[in-house]
């Protein structure tokens, strides 16, 4: 018995790396097989039924995302000169994700298309997860360089002002050629361009022949999600946890809002800004003072610069939101159902056509 133990012990000591490698193969086989859902999309791994939909009408893309290029989103539309072109910018809540979704449900942009006279106007949504205003500015700037835009509907979330900086996918979107673009302000330049030519060969072989190689992004997202859950459990974070602003990012975002306003003035674009709907709850997940200061600032900005600003905090009824947001579903407590999307589309439609809000009478203008 002791001999056997010593034999095993010596074998393990000598071949520890080989044993680790074999274990790695076994674990990776088990682990990667379990990751069958797309962890980059909250709707596929949270326990609520939400979805992001790509909507095309008459071969024209209504829901532009970073997966497309600016030309793919706007080239066809630019050919129809008689139509007024509008962009509806915001994050997933207003533009793409539908809570309690079934196959026939559509998001606000499709409802807007249905009710709007699409012979004269065409609105394209541009949905960006956690969209900060710096990114919105660069995107708008890139679009308006090549395409004539008549009106801009912009949702501005206080929560998203916590974000700052330009993500790689946004760079790719505005440049149409990510490889040639360097991030501004980055001292450390990327020399991986020469790598990419060679890499693609080996990587494409790996994608094809190496088991699970192509599924690694999903695994990374899974790991990130587990870390996120762990953090929330340790620090007891849930939907009701107050989200404080990050002052420097907040100020920097508002500076970019001023830049957006400037673009709209120069390019003669009608700007409609709105504070998006909030889920009904006893206490807001924002700090009350910070939230009211934020709304007050937007109001003042709209008065000073003569653009429209609407506060949509309460326009979506309670029934359209997730019933009991809890720790398992905190990723999706922000999204509402198709009824909510219809309400939002009607509001936007009325604002665009009649310059007034339907339900929410307390319009700030």
């Amino acid at each position, binding site marked *: 018995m002791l001999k056997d133990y010593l034999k095993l012990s010596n074998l*393990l000591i000598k071949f520890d790396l080989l*044993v680790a490698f074999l274990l790695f193969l076994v674990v990776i086989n088990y682990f990667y097989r379990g990751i069958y859902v797309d962890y980059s999309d909250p709707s596929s791994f949270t326990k609520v039924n939400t979805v992001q939909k790509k909507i095309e009408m008459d071969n024209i893309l209504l829901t532009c995302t970073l997966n497309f290029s600016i030309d793919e989103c706007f080239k066809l539309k630019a050919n129809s000169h008689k139509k007024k072109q509008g962009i509806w910018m915001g994050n997933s809540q207003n533009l793409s994700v539908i809570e309690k979704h079934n196959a026939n449900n559509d998001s606000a942009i499709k409802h807007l298309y249905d009710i709007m006279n699409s012979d004269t106007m065409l609105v394209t949504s541009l949905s960006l997860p956690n969209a900060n205003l710096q990114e919105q500015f660069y995107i708008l700037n890139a679009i308006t360089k090549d395409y004539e835009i008549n009106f801009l509907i912009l949702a501005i979330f206080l929560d998203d002002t916590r974000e700052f900086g330009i993500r790689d996918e946004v760079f790719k979107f505005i440049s149409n050629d990510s490889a040639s673009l360097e991030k501004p302000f*980055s001292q450390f330049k990327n*020399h991986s361009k020469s*790598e990419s030519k060679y*890499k693609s060969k080996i990587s494409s072989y790996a994608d094809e022949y190496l088991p699970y190689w192509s599924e*690694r992004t999903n695994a990374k997202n899974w790991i990130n999600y587990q870390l996120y859950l762990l953090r929330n459990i340790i620090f007891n974070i849930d939907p009701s946890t107050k989200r404080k602003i990050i002052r*420097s990012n907040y100020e920097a975002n508002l500076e970019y809002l001023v830049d957006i306003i400037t673009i709209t003035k120069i390019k003669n674009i009608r700007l409609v800004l709105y504070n998006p709907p909030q889920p009904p709850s006893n206490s807001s997940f924002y700090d009350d003072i910070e939230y009211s200061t934020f709304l007050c600032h937007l109001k003042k900005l709209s008065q000073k610069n003569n653009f429209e600003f609407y506060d949509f905090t309460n326009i979506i009824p309670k029934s359209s939101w997730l019933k009991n947001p809890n720790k398992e579903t905190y990723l999706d407590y922000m999204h509402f159902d198709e009824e909510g999307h219809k309400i939002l589309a009607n509001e936007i439609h009325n604002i665009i056509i009649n310059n007034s809000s339907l339900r929410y009478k307390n319009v700030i203008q």
Partner: protein
Amino acid sequence: MLFNSIDYLFFLFIVLIFHQFINSTFRLILLIAASNYFYYSFQPQYLYLIYLIALLDFFLAKYILKNKTYSFYLLLLNLFINLFILFYFKYINYIIEILSYFNAIIFNNSGDYTSIMLPLGISFYTFQSISYIVDVYRGKYLPQNKFLPYLCYIFFFPLLIAGPLVRANELIPQLEFLKGSNFENLVKGFKLIILGLLIKVVLADNLSPIVDEIYNMPTSYLGALDVLTMAFIFGFQIYFDFSSYSMIAIGSALLFGITLPQNFNFPYSSSSPKEFWTRWNITLSKWIFEYIYIPLKNIKFSFGLNTLLFSILPLFLTWFIMGLWHGSSINFILWGIYQALFIFIYRIVSTFSFFKNIKYINTLGCFITLPTIMLSWIFFRARDINQAFEIYTSLFKVENFFHLSFKENYYLITLIITIGYFVTYFWYKYKIEIYFPRLTFKIFTILFYTIALILVFTYLEPINQFIYFQF
């Protein structure tokens, strides 16, 4: 071909297979061919430069030994050529920028200038070349009779781009008698590569976007805690990035039976700046000490400098050169002067007997050295001198002391990494493994490498090049 890419692992595997099974006489040729291919995958246009430097050193070194009368001038000639090449490629863009600025001001002529790309690894292979020639001149090393081992010394792919900086006597004898690697070296080599990749792809690459974000943020609301977070988080990024590169380089060399010197030894646990520089980029620090600091110290000035100035001048000059070596921007020069100043203060303070009698002087030293060194990295990472000073000024903005400018996660990550670093350090320092039964520890090791392999497999992407590639 970055170390953190599947391409490199594939390349390494192929070279290793050939190396193990071919005749020993062809092993050197194989390594040179592999190094050619490795460099060619980055910058084929600068391949000639390495050959040029290698040929020049090889022949000049022979003449230095033969012609004692002219040996000093030959040495100067070699140093001039090497340093000219280094300076030309490293600083020409900066000089052109300054000249064009004056050109625009004085002659109102703003022409377009194409910038010249820095040849990868030039700072490292020119330093290796200089140390060879100086050692031959000093009689410490006999010039090479065979060209191929010397070429491979300049050209050996694991250390071609960012070191470790090795001396001729450390590497050439190993290259002259290349054997197939034994089982022990193979296991050690693979373990180092896995560990290096783990640190690079999981730690350094995941810190990179956070560092980019916080250094791109406006500085107006930063408080002391924010500045320390910025300093620590970049300090750890650059440490993970560079030490992982060195680990992969040392591990790769070990696969071919070649032992390279250690380049990092838990530098952030140092109790003084002097100790820090014996544990951070060890090979470069030794090089600078031996080939710059000591010669400067030995120069006998005859123009009446007072004693204090005379004693500190070599220190500040050395660190000025060290800063300049990292880059032409004023940030790097100030970083060098910061280090010199810190060492100078330490030298003065350490002479007081009062400090020697403090019971926990090393712990206290660590508490002072760690944040001071971390803060110096701000010069390294800030996009320009203005931003660097804005960040440093924020350390003293009392009105910002009590609010946080970053996402809460970033403070948490910095704290976890700092704690994790010291836990790992104490584990190694006190050899915690001896407290476990041997088999239990082995099982732990197996589990560790299993998890490491899973993480490397999952995160391996050449998304970020190594920071030291630009130097």
